C-alpha cells in the first residue's frame, strides 16, 4: 500500500509539473503540449481506430518475431552450450554480433527482403535472438548435470529429453535472458517500424512527426511504454513467480 501511494503521488506530481510548465507557456504548445492535449490525442487515436490497429499490428509482429527467436535461440544456445566445437566457433561469433546494435540490421533487411513484413520480422529476430541464445547457452551450462542424467536414466532421450528435462531444468537460468531478449526485440521492432509505412506503432510515431503533431508523438510513446510494461508484468513476472513457487528458490 505504501508503495502504491508513493507511486500515485510521484506520477501526480510529474503530471502536475508538466501541466504547470505547459500552462506557463515556457515553450510553445506545438513543441510542448499540455497533458490534456496528449490525453485528447490518445482518445482520438483510439476513436478513429488507428491506435487499435497500430497495437494489433505491432503485437502480432512482436509475437511472431519473438517466438521465432525463442525457438531458434534455444536450439542454437543448446548446441553451443553442449558441444565444445560449436562453443569455440559459433559461440565467439554470437558474442561479437551482440555488439552490433540491432538497428544496423535494417539496411540489410530492406535490401534482402524489400519494404516488407519479412524485413521487420527479421530485424526483431536479430534483435532478440542473441540474448536468447546466450541465455540458453548459459542455462545449459549452469543447469545441474544431475537432471540430464536422471532423465536419461528414466528412459528419456532425444527430443523428449530436451522437452521434458533440459528445457524445464534450465528455465530458471534463462528466464532473465528471455526477458532481455524480449526487451531488445521490442526496441528493434519499433525502430524498424519507424523506417517505412508499416501500420505499426512505430509508424504512428513517425506520422506524428510528419504532421508536426507533438501530442500524438507523446501519446504513442506512452502507449509503447505501457505495452512493454504490461507484457513484462503479465508474462515474465508470472513466469518468475511460478518458478519461485515450484523450485522453492530461484537459483539464478
Amino acid at each position, binding site marked *: 500500500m505504501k508503495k502504491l501511494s508513493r507511486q500515485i503521488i510521484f506520477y501526480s506530481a510529474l503530471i502536475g509539473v508538466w501541466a504547470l510548465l505547459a500552462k506557463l507557456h515556457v515553450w510553445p504548445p506545438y513543441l510542448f503540449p499540455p497533458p490534456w492535449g496528449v490525453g485528447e490525442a490518445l482518445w482520438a487515436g483510439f476513436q478513429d481506430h488507428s491506435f487499435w490497429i497500430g497495437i494489433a499490428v505491432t503485437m502480432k509482429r512482436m509475437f511472431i518475431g519473438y517466438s521465432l527467436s525463442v525457438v531458434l535461440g534455444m536450439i542454437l544456445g543448446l548446441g553451443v552450450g553442449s558441444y565444445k566445437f560449436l562453443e569455440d566457433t559459433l559461440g565467439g561469433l554470437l558474442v561479437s554480433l551482440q555488439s552490433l546494435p540491432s538497428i544496423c540490421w535494417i539496411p540489410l533487411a530492406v535490401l534482402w527482403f524489400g519494404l516488407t513484413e519479412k524485413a521487420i520480422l527479421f530485424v526483431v529476430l536479430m534483435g532478440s535472438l542473441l540474448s536468447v541464445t546466450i541465455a540458453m547457452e548459459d542455462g545449459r551450462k549452469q543447469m*545441474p548435470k*544431475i*537432471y540430464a*542424467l*536422471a*532423465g*536419461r*536414466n*528414466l*528412459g*528419456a*532421450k532425444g527430443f*523428449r529429453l530436451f522437452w*521434458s*528435462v533440459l528445457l*524445464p*531444468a534450465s*528455465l530458471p537460468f534463462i528466464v532473465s535472458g528471455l526477458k532481455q531478449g524480449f526487451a531488445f526485440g521490442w526496441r528493434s521492432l519499433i525502430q524498424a517500424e519507424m523506417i517505412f509505412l508499416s501500420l505499426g506503432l512505430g509508424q504512428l510515431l513517425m506520422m506524428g512527426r510528419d504532421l508536426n503533431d507533438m501530442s500524438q508523438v507523446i501519446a504513442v510513446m506512452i502507449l509503447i511504454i505501457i505495452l512493454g510494461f504490461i507484457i513484462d508484468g503479465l508474462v515474465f513476472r508470472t513466469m518468475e513467480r511460478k518458478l519461485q*513457487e*515450484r*523450485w*522453492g*528458490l530461484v537459483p539464478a
Partner: protein
Amino acid sequence: MSTSPHNAYPAPVPPDHRGVVRGNVLRGKPVSSVAVLPMRPGTAANVVPKVALDGISLSYKTNSKGRLVALENISLQVQPGEFLCIVGPSGCGKSTLLHLIAGLHQPTSGQVSVDGKVVSGPGTDRILIFQELGLFPWLTVGQNVEFGMKMKNISKAEREEKIQYYLRLVHLSKFRDSFTHQLSGGMRQRVALARALATEPDVLLMDEPFAALDAQTRDLLHDELERIWAETGRTIIFVTHNVREAVRLGDRVALMTFRPGRVKQEFPIHLPRPRHIEETDVARTAREILDCLREEINKSLEVEYADEKAK
C-alpha cells in the same frame, strides 16, 4: 502386469535364515513362492545372473598426471532378487560402477550384462537412484513418479493406477501434489524410490541414498526398503560407505579397494531378517568388514594428504 521375473528361475538353495517371507501384496497376486534367493555367489551357477560385470575397467585422462585408473578388472555377479551392497572408501569408484551398470557411461574395457544381454546404454530395466536424487523440481511428487512411465509410453490409466500404488507403498499419497522442495529429506528420498520403482525395473541401483539423512530417518527407511524389496522382489545393488548399513541390508557385501577400484573381498551375510542396525550380530559382522576396509581408507587418506602436500 507381469507378476514376477523370478518364476523363470529354478529354485536355488532355500536359505533358512531369511526371516521375511517373500509373499506378496502387489495387487494381491502372489509374486512367487519360489522367489528365494541364492545367498552365496556360486550356489546357483546354473542360473543366468541378473547382472554380470565382466572384467570392467575404467580409466580417464586427468589434466596433469596422465591417466587415472578408476576401476580395474571388476567382475561381479548378482543373482535375481539379491540385495548386494558395495562398500569402499570414498573415491574408490563405487558410484561410477553404478553409473556403468545404469548405462550412463561406458567402461574402457569389459562389459556389463543384464540377463545375459550386454548393456550399451540407459534402459528402464535398470534404474539408478542418485545420491543427489535428481528429483525434478518443476514437477509435483506425482508427476515425478509418473515421469519414467511416460517415457515408456505407458497408458494414462495404467500410469494413474501405478502412481497411486507406489505413492502408497512409500507412504506419500497425501503429498502427491506437493513440489519436492516442500518435502523433508526423508520424504524426498522416498519420492526417488517411488519414481524408480514405478518404472518397474528389474534392477534397482542405489547410490548412497541415505547418506545425508539423520539416523532416525535412515533406520526407518532401512525398514521400508527391506519391506519394499520383499514385496516387489527387485534385485538391488546398493552402494554405501557405511559398513553397518551394508550389513543391515545386504545378502552379500562386496568390499572395494581404493584407486584403482577393485573388488577386494565379498562377504555373504547370513543374519536373519528383519535385521536392525543396532543388533550385536550386525555390529560384529560389520566389524570384520571394517577391519578389512580400514586398510583401504588409510590408503585413500595417504593419497589425499600427499595431494595436499604437493600443493
